[in-house]
């Protein structure tokens, strides 16, 4: 098990670290605010029925997609360095899951729609 390296940082390093953390915090807050905002819009669209349902559905799905990306990249650190493998695994997993769902919808439940 790696020992904790308690080396002293230089002043420049400390300042750099603080700046990085401030930036990180700002990004977290901005994405958090954005996500709440998107949720409110989606909720409002569905509750108030200002536009027809066939427009509401794709808009809500689109917002959901943006939220997923924000979640993964900003809250779950996929944007950071050293996460290439996690990224690769998630994207591959998404791809397979999507393929399976499409296959299930078309060839199990709808049943050979292209005959």
């Amino acid at each position, binding site marked *: 098990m790696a020992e904790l390296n308690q080396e002293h940082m230089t002043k420049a390093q400390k300042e750099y670290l603080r700046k990085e953390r401030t930036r990180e915090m700002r990004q977290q807050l901005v994405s958090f605010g954005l996500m709440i905002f998107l949720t409110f819009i989606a909720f409002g669209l569905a509750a108030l029925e200002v536009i027809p349902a066939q427009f509401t559905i794709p808009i809500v799905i689109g917002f959901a997609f943006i939220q997923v990306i924000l979640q993964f990249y900003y809250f779950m650190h996929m944007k950071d360095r050293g996460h290439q493998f996690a990224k690769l695994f998630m994207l591959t997993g998404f791809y397979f899951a999507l393929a399976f769902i499409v296959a299930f919808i078309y060839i199990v439940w709808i049943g*050979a729609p292209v005959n």
Partner: protein
Amino acid sequence: MAQTSAQKKGVGSVIWEYLTTVDHKKIAILYLIAGGFFFVLGGIEAMLIRIQLAVPNNDFLSAGLFNEVITMHGTTMIFLAAMPLLFAFMNATVPLQIGARDVAFPFLNSLGVWLFIFGGIFLNLSWFMGGAPDAGWTSYASLSIASPGHGIDFYALGLQISGAGTLISGINFVTTIITMRAPGMTYMRMPLMTWTTLVASVLIVFAFPPLTIGIFLLMFDRMFGSNFFLVEAGGNTIIWEHLFWIFGHPEVYILILPAFGIFSEIFATFARKRLFGYSAMVFATVLIGFYGFMVWAHHMFTVGLGPVANAIFAVATMAIAVPTGIKIFNWIATIWGGSIEFTTPMLYALAFIPSFTMGGVTGIMQAAAPADYQYHDSYFIVAHFHYVIVGGVVFALLAGLHYYWPLMFATMLNEKLGKITFWLFFFGFHLTFLIQHFLGLWGMPRRVFTYLDGQGYNAANMISTAGAFLMAVAVIVLVVNIIMTIAKNERVGMDPWGDGRTLEWSLPLPVPYYNFAQIPLIRGLDPYWVEKKEGNGKMLPSESLTDFHMPNNSILPVVMSLGLFIAAFGAMFFPDGKDWAIDAVSGLDPKPWALPVLIIGLGTTFVAMGIRSWKDDLGYYVKKEEVEKDLEELERGGK
């Protein structure tokens, strides 16, 4: 804990050591013993099948028993023999090949092996508790929901437990290979065995969840009154087929990729040449892994998916021939012009190329969806998958057993007996399965317990059975060889094959429990070979000799697995005699003790998990002085 001196230990303490071990080398031995046991069990079942089919109208096995035997043969060989034996070699080699002192999660490694062992025992207890599963290893839901008694429950629960173990081991290997490589061991310097283990483990991580879901749905249907596959209640049995094959097709690549890895090592070692086209081999391995997920419906061409779906899956299936072909040609190019040494592992490797290619070619024939309507459910299919699994995976397991035996036990298997095993097995294998292609084309369906006289199947089936007996004799010779080698116990030293290329052969034998006194520095592909040719034949250290950290042993993995084993009995007998249960079990005597057993079993597992979570286990440090003493002893012994 640390057992470095050659003290005699009591039987009890050895057993306790193996029950609690978290050392990947000892876990490899556990996998080897348990996998070997199930391999023999599956082999006996295969012999029963061949005896039954030797002559027409045979009544050696009854029709029902025959179904149980074929189901258990397939299930045992895939889940309880081939995969654990591959895990044995992965555990024995991968941490040594990448220069690590253990795997990333030693505790989980132990949990994986014990879940597999308890799952395997549970599945095989079905023989003594009212009948084994009888719906085929694919356990299609239309059959498995209707199957009376508890056979299918043994299948579902046993595979659920051992499958959890496999998933845990897969995650463990991915993490180990990504995070624990020695300095200088870049991805493109990893030996092929490590690469194939990585890709196979990734496949496990992605492929086992669909199986887990499928089996959960089956469990809920059979034990807790749900309706996922009950057509009369609005369920759909095709969903099981999809879920099973979304798992099942990657599964065959999980088996074959480590086999490719073992052969790649053997070819390079005994041709005394660098593996030809290393980067193409890596690329092909990854590509095969990726394609493996896009082709599952080629097992279901006759289900009626429609021509477009069939065409897509047919083309995707044919595409897999390309990376596999790249591999075959690279192996041939590796031995081309090499200074070949015909050891037992090399014989298996050389025999593997034509045998596996024959299986691959029939695979491409079946990929053509219209033609597959002809081959489907005939002996042609049986011949095909035995050619790839026996000619590929089992050859690799036998080759790996001879090749890695000195690494695992510091002795050498007898070469003469090894070669006798090889020739018997090789001829027996082709005698058994080559003729089955023709049986299939002549119209003999698979999974039938007998056939009539005068259909033209008699001679071919007799030939097939004769071949099976040759293979059985080969395995008996192998067992004799193993017993003789253990009894003689002639120790071998470092690099016993003389031409070791990869890092694992640079270690003293038997390998010390901490593997590396100092983590080595890797200077190229085949690092040990690089040091032999460009250095002084010894690995350079990448760190100074200091204390280092090792994990403690633990009994908790056994307790957790035992808890699930007990819970499985509770779950299985829970629906007996309940009026909401499916017809298969609703008529049985009610078992009021089933629910308490389920709760006690799960409780045991959760308590053990709680202890693991809340009680800190920080491991221990191996002292520098101890390692120095070992190194001195080695120096004296080596002279």
